[in-house]
């Protein structure tokens, strides 16, 4: 199941596009669904606006009616707000614990003179991940604040007439790209320990809701014991305690690896592990002329031109009767699915000598290595893969030049690099191309930045926790309102683990109970 991190994104876009038909811009009406009772319904969003990677300064931005409050309580400006659009050096503190998080610049942009046309605040803080995480989490703890959805700042800007229509024409593509980045990021996390934890909570919440709903819809006519609700009470209590513990736990279970995820993939014996070893300048992976040497994923952290990269070498893709190797291939495919950038390595001695045939061969190869695309009619997005033709030392010089020249004529294959891991020929050019790719990817604050996802998860978990309190509050007074609490909790958690529909709840009801009326 894909996590539906983009739940609610498009409707905001829909709203934006619609109002562009001539009606005056109205206040942005994004979803507050899942916002439990007690949290303010004002819509103030925040996000890391600068890219990540090694940088001196990071910019965190907030937009919406609570911006002024945030500025006051986090920059210690109790008396008055700073003059508009003027940088001010302040200590930035956590509004709850009053702990100083960083010392940095704050800027106040009152509406309408801001990027989004709303009240905006910018925090220019030190670029380390610990500081960024702390500031994002502090922002998330202020009532009424939530992490921005993909493209949301842009949409608000358009809403306020700050962007032209042409900029918004690309909104669909923007949202697509950003949701894709979020999806990959979420996939990585969901396949880990944390993912299992959230899935388990989601499963238990679904059962709680199904049992409450069964009690509401069927208990008058059917044999549904009162004990069902007591079970739900216990489950809700347990969940509340676990979520609370999780929110307090600073270790948060597992370390989320920061950096652009680059995966090396391709057929067996193409030289993938040699490429890894060449890039990290040490024999991190075993290389041998035997096909299928690499069986598990070999992971190594690199610094490419100042940007953090998490490089993974994977098993060669082939059908194998060997169970261990098959598992390796499955893991390889999973990695490619989650990758920000895939280096598709091809043994260039395997290429047909005819240029056209070689091009067709490579196209076919890309299709078999890269995950199936949502938009089959378009070619693979060029920023998601890099074709590496290895072992050029084994080609005669003139054939190599011919191949290079002819392949450059073919669209859809570019970018590609001819290298030899054996004698390092072409390596410098390859590193330049790789560097520019990584740089582009790092410019997108969403890819590879676990802090943002963490802040998002935290906000949703807090909402989930608050909603469960509504169940407790109404359990004995009004079961419909109590059920609403569980439903809201599940919606909040569903922002992380994927949406849960009414039919799914009914399925559980019919599986667990004999309903006959």
């Amino acid at each position, binding site marked *: 199941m894909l996590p539906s991190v983009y739940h609610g994104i498009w409707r905001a876009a829909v709203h934006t596009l619609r109002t562009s038909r001539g009606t005056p811009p109205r206040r942005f009406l994004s979803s507050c669904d899942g916002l439990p009772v007690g949290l303010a319904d004002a819509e103030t969003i925040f996000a890391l606006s600068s890219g990540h990677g090694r940088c001196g300064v990071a910019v965190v931005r907030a937009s919406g009616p609570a911006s002024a409050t945030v500025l006051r309580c986090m920059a210690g400006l109790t008396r008055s707000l700073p003059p508009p659009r003027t940088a001010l050096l302040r200590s930035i503190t956590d509004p709850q614990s009053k702990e100083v998080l960083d010392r940095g610049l704050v800027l106040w942009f009152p509406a309408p003179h801001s990027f989004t046309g709303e009240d905006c605040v910018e925090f220019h803080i030190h670029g380390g991940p610990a500081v960024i995480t702390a500031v994002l989490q502090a922002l998330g703890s202020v009532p009424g604040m939530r992490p921005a959805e993909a493209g949301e700042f842009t949409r608000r800007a358009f809403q306020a007439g700050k962007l032209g229509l042409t900029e918004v024409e690309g909104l669909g593509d923007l949202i697509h790209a950003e949701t894709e980045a979020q999806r990959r990021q979420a996939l990585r996390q969901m396949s880990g320990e944390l993912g299992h934890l959230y899935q388990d909570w989601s499963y238990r919440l679904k059962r709680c809701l199904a049992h409450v709903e069964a009690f509401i819809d069927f208990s008058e006519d059917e044999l549904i014991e009162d004990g069902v609700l007591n079970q739900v009470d216990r489950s809700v209590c347990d969940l509340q305690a676990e979520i609370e513990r999780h929110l307090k736990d600073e270790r948060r279970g597992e370390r989320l690896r920061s950096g652009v995820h680059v995966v090396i993939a391709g057929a067996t014996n193409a030289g993938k592990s040699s490429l890894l070893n060449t890039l990290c300048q040490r024999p991190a992976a075993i290389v041998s002329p035997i096909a299928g040497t690499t069986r598990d994923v070999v992971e190594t952290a690199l610094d490419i031109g100042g940007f953090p990269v998490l490089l993974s070498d994977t098993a060669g893709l082939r059908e194998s009767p060997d169970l261990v190797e098959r598992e390796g291939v499955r893991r390889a495919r999973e990695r490619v699915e989650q990758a920000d950038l895939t280096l598709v390595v091809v043994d260039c001695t395997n290429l047909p000598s005819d240029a056209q045939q070689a091009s067709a061969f490579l196209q076919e190869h890309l299709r078999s290595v890269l995950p199936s695309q949502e*938009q089959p009619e378009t070619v693979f997005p060029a920023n998601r893969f890099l074709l590496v033709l290895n072992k050029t030392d084994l080609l005669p010089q003139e054939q190599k030049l011919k191949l290079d020249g002819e392949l450059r004529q073919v669209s859809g294959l570019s970018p590609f690099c001819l290298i030899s891991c054996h004698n390092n020929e072409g390596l410098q050019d390859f590193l330049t191309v790789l560097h520019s790719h990584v740089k582009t990817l790092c410019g997108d604050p969403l890819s590879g930045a676990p802090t943002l996802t963490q802040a998002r998860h935290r906000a949703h978990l807090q909402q989930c926790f608050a909603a469960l309190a509504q169940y407790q509050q109404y359990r004995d007074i009004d079961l419909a309102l109590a059920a609403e609490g569980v439903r809201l909790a599940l919606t909040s958690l569903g922002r992380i683990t994927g949406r849960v529909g009414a039919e799914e709840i009914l399925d559980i009801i019919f599986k667990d109970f004999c309903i006959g009326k």
Partner: protein
Amino acid sequence: MLTKKLPPLRSFLVQVSRHASHIARQQYDVIVVGGGHAGTEAAAAAARVGAETLLVTQKIHTIGALSCNPSLGGVGKGQLVKEVDALDGLCGRAGDWAGIHFSILNRRKGPAVWGPRAQLDRERYRKFIQSELLSTPRLTVVEGSVEDLLVTEPNPEEPGHHKVTGIRLENGSDPISASSVILTTGTFLTGSLFMGQTMSPGGRIGDAPSSAGLSRTMRERLGLRIGRLRTGTPPRIVKDSVDLAQAHLHLPDSPPTPFSFLNTHTRCKPEEQLPCYLTYTTPGVERVVQESLHLNCHIQQDAKGPRYCPSIESRVLRFPGRKHQVWLEPEGVTSDLLYPQGLSMTMPPDIQLRLIREIPAMHRAEIHTPGYGVQYDFVCPTQLSPALQVKSTQGLFLAGQINGTTGYEEAAAQGLWAGVNAARWALSMPAVTLSRTESYIGVLIDDLVSRGVTEPYRMFTSRAEFRTSLRPDNADLRLTLKGFEEVGCVSSLRYQEAVRVRDSLHEALAALQSLVLSSPNWKKKLPDIHICEAKNGMDVLQYSDVSFEMLASAFPECLSPYMEFSQRLKIEAVYKRHCDLQRKEIARIQKEENMSLPQDMDYISLPVSLSNEAREILDRVRPSTLGAATRLQGITPAAIVHLLHYVRCIGQKERQRHRSQPDQKEERKEDLCASSASLPQ
């Protein structure tokens, strides 16, 4: 009081033409085929909207017959009854007239999920419905069997698109023409009855099967996708043969609460109500089922049956080794039969007898009519618009079991809405839709047309996302005003009552809010209640131990005028905070639902960036609004944005084109993206 005195039946029967050859006219605005719960509501609603309406049914005598259980309402279903009543439909008032055992289910679980329910007297229900229909202006009732549906040849410019022109009856008379035809054939469309190893054509025991022509036209000429479902009914038990002392007595509410917003009490006096009885199955029942499986063709068939109204066979097969409830329900004041709810079965009659006698209270019971199973065709409802009109056939509307639902209330709700829209279509008025944010009827129709069904569809409160706003108590405020002002299916009498209620509630809420006291002063007024931080009367009324009556006696001068609304005000106070929170979400969804997608869009070749999977889903389901499209599995937000962008662009081009060469359709095209009414194609 009951506002409608039941007129003597005989005087109305003379107005009815018994045979089609005698009917006064050969042309109607709306023809309704079928006289069940969907057909009767449809015919009455169409006539209320102002259409000359003809109801064709096999037997006038069976109009309004309760084919299965003698009860109305329940959890989720009761909400539908209240909504049908709020739109001036029949079933709520008929229930108040015919009810003999009233109870509000879920009384302890919160007003949003209360389930008004009643056991009915079959005779009284039927007679009330018949007398209502026969006295409805603009409505003619005729006995007859429909041989075929008359449709035009498809428009060459739009292949596969037809238009309904009327019907032909089996007696060979001239065709009867109409702009709209509503089919409410229930289980009669290619219906088969099953009992033991025998199978016979038909939709209900004792009635003739429907014509094969109708089914053929639907499948072959109109090319509609048809599925097959099954259901069943239990044997009817002779009351005197049951040892009721061995069953648990279940008493009704006293006083009974009526369904209808127009009624303050029911026809049945509190003390005249009849009880129900509860018994349980035994291991013997399971044994009989197991031993007779080879004699039971219905249970061996693979047509989908309901999971929530399963036959006793499927119950014990799915959950073996458990005891299951069996309710023994009265069939009427003078009836000597009992209805064993939960014992629907299709085995041979001698084995049915063996089975029921395994239940202690029925160890000597006699069967009056054996149970049987029905398999029938239904039209996959994703082929319908939210007005319940077949998308590819102008003027053809479907309601009830033919759309894959089960239950009287679900049928009545669809019937009413199909009747309204069929009449509006015939009278050249734009279609109207109900949103899932404002009514259970909207939830029902939206689920049907945008998701389709895989098993008989029944309403549950858990299907309604905005359950706390869509309560049985406020159905009148949600629907009656709109029903009069925008839809035209509500009488002015009912409208005026709803306006009075709305205004009084507003005044009362304002009065409560203006009662602002300090905590010590509240303490003085209500010494038994521990009040902290309450600001006004509304806040105080939210407390679980405060009733409106208590406040009214503390502040008689400003609150006593509203005593008749005490319960509603208490509910409003408790739910206000939650409903306010939901209102924003509702506004957002309504905005999406107000964006129509053209029905003739070619999703497969649409020049936008959409995955093949998304194209196939959109092509198959053809959502009528963007809101419906978002609820489809497999449609990504990016796909929706691309889709919206495209629709907006063609909407602009259309407008420009029409500006240069105006024609009468301009108004309709203008609303391409923005109309709240879905467009006829």
